């Protein structure tokens, strides 16, 4: 079994090497490829083949079986040579067009091989546990990269994936507060706005600032920070605001907290459009010309790291105390958990990631305007959290991709007037999509009271246990 795994790993590595070599060698071969695909060359080959075929026909007509056989052999040889040639051109062309994707695929194969070897050699089982997650993560990122290269960066699929990844981060950050700590806050859009604006303000190209801030004499900030630094600042700015308003607001309970945070989000939206802050926020005008991402891997990477951090936090001793506060504040306090400090912690951290999500959203939209960060945006994310399951990270992630795909893509056809022959399909018109969408959501909430995942997580361990359980059960039956 161990040998088998190592041999399989070796084969995977060889395959990866072949793919890498093919992808790299075809990169600089455009002239050769063009020559091989030259219509003139192809015409000459076609003419030669036609001649060979004619020879066979003549031989058959002359009733000369010996010559016919010889001509036929030559014809077939020539034909298969041409097939091989076009096959190789096709192969090279494929690698020429999909070089980056194929390199990514090779990377995946190497990771898989490394996983297999680790699985075969590791005795303690510590590395073993990491193999499958590592492979799945590589599959995810390699998959996104390949899909982006094949489907095109502006395809609907990529739009959904990019927005889905950003919404996943926003939903998980909201879940940390509402689902795990039990604080019903509706300030998400406000913190996203702070994040989006902070990011945009610091990453607008210096030479474009005069144009962007045309009504405010070019604005007051005249430098540009790198994207990742601006994203970190976006998170910190949102966290700072959360820290400041947390002091009065977190003393409120349930509905009152919701109302206070909702009010905060509305106030922030108004303040950012205030003309007096124009040199910083550009008043009610758009912010644009800031750094945006050119590949879906960027939001996937940032959101992935952030969600992983939140997951680690939730499974730490601090996360456990958050859940205790959610379940019973009085008991949590009697167990020595400082309620205010822990609530503040959850609030600030959740807002930090909401700010980062806001920055990513700004990059995705390429422009930012405060007026867009309405409470409807908070409700959208709250909806994702509820559908995914309060207190489930994987639920939030799954729900955000489903939500974005359904609202942006799958139900899109409902907005178009459609004719089936001469029959005009009733009800289909602009806006009908949202009607159906609402009904779907109501149905989901009715049939999955606790959301898709409840408060459980998608776990490989449980999946594996269930599989082995079934296998064991089957063995007993047999």
């Amino acid at each position: 079994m161990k040998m088998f795994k190592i041999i399989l790993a070796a084969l995977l590595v060889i395959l990866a090497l072949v793919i890498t070599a093919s992808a790299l060698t075809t990169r600089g071969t455009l002239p050769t490829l063009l020559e091989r695909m030259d219509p003139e060359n192809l015409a000459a080959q076609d003419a030669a083949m036609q001649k060979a075929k004619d020879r066979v026909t003549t031989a058959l007509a002359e009733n000369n079986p010996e010559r016919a056989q010889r001509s036929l052999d030559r014809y077939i040889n020539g034909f298969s040579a041409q097939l091989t040639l076009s096959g190789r051109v096709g192969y090279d062309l494929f690698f020429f067009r999909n070089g980056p994707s194929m390199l990514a695929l090779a990377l995946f194969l190497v990771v898989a091989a490394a996983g297999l070897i680790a699985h075969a050699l590791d005795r303690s089982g510590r590395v073993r546990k990491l193999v499958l997650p590592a492979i799945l993560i590589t599959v995810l990122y390699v998959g996104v990269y390949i899909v982006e290269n094949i489907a095109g960066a502006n395809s609907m699929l990529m739009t959904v994936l990019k927005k889905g990844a950003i919404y996943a981060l926003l939903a998980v950050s909201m879940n940390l507060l509402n689902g795990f700590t039990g604080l019903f806050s509706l300030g998400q859009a406000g913190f996203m706005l702070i994040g989006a604006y902070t990011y945009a303000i610091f990453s607008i190209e210096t030479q474009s600032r005069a144009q962007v801030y045309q009504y405010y004499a070019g604005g007051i900030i005249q430098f540009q920070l790198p994207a990742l630094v601006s994203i970190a600042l976006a998170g910190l700015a949102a966290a700072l605001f959360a820290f400041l308003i947390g002091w009065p607001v977190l003393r409120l309970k349930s509905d009152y907290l919701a109302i206070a945070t909702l009010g905060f989000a509305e106030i922030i939206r108004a303040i950012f459009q205030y003309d007096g802050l124009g040199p910083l926020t550009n008043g009610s005008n758009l912010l644009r010309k800031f750094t945006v991402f050119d590949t879906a891997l960027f939001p996937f990477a940032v959101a992935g790291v952030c969600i992983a951090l939140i997951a680690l936090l939730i499974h730490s001793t601090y996360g456990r105390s958050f859940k205790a506060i959610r379940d019973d504040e009085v008991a949590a306090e009697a167990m020595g958990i400082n309620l205010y400090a822990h609530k503040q912690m959850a609030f600030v951290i959740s807002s930090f990631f909401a700010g980062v999500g806001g920055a990513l959203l700004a990059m995705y939209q390429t422009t930012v305007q405060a007026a867009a960060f309405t409470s409807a945006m908070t409700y959208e994310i709250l909806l994702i959290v509820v559908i995914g399951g309060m207190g489930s990270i994987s639920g939030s992630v799954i729900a955000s991709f489903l939500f974005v795909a359904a609202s942006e893509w799958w139900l899109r056809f409902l907005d178009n007037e459609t004719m089936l022959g001469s029959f005009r399909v009733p009800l289909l018109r602009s806006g009908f999509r949202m009607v159906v969408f609402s009904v779907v959501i109501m149905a989901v909430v009715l049939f999955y009271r606790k959301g898709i995942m409840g408060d459980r997580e998608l776990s490989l361990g449980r999946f594996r246990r269930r599989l082995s359980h079934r296998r064991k059960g089957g063995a007993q039956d047999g």
Partner: protein
Amino acid sequence: MADAMLELSHVTMQFGGVVAVDNLSMHIDQDEIVALIGPNGAGKTTAFNCITGVYTPTSGQVFYRGELIVSNRPQGKMKTLYAGSHKDFPTQVVVNTPDRITKMGLARTFQNIRLFKTQTVFENVLIATHLHRTSNLFTATMRLNRQEERSFREHAMSMLEAVGLQDEKDELAVSLPYGKQRRLEIARALATRPRLLLLDEPAAGMNPQETDALGRFIVDIRSRFGLTVFLIEHHMDLVMDISDRIYVIDFGRQIAHGIPEQIQDNPDVITAYLGVDEE
């Protein structure tokens, strides 16, 4: 004499015009099991809440091992509203939140069980180790505290073993039968490593056999963990059985104090429980 484990000095708790606890003074020495009894609505749980920081008493002081942990005097409109019998107010104001008092070494259970409902038996106890953390948010998130995490888990597990719930550790806390939920609450309180354990009606809803076992269990953990126990209880058999001393309160006031035998024969106590025969 060494400082008492817990000492209450003229504690009065008044809600609006209602004096729930009136001029309650008591002391509990190291290693004692002391019971607080009284008819329904006598103010027993309110007294507990004043000690553990859930309420700040209107007036009076609480000392824990000689340290002043709670102290208050009537303030604001309470100055005019005050109806307690003790008028000599302390000058200091000391307010501690329940979590700080638990950190000092007082742990409690609740009359109406308060377990963390969505979590397993083991997780319920594990949470109570949080107050002993030395890791901060960063080290805990980045898993740089493996050593500490392991010791937390071992400690929580040993507490479960102490109350005999190790086999149910992965079950949801709420799925346990009533008696085991009570034991789990005690395990959770023990996991905070207290010196003084306050039990609020630990035998409520238990049958005589269970109550009997609980009594032995309380005596057992006292010696095993070097605890001092202060309990509120209605089961007189249990109280008389295990208590070293008993305080009796009625309408917030102390009406008797002494060893079980003295309390049993005290006419005031009998009157409080059975009522006065009206002629």
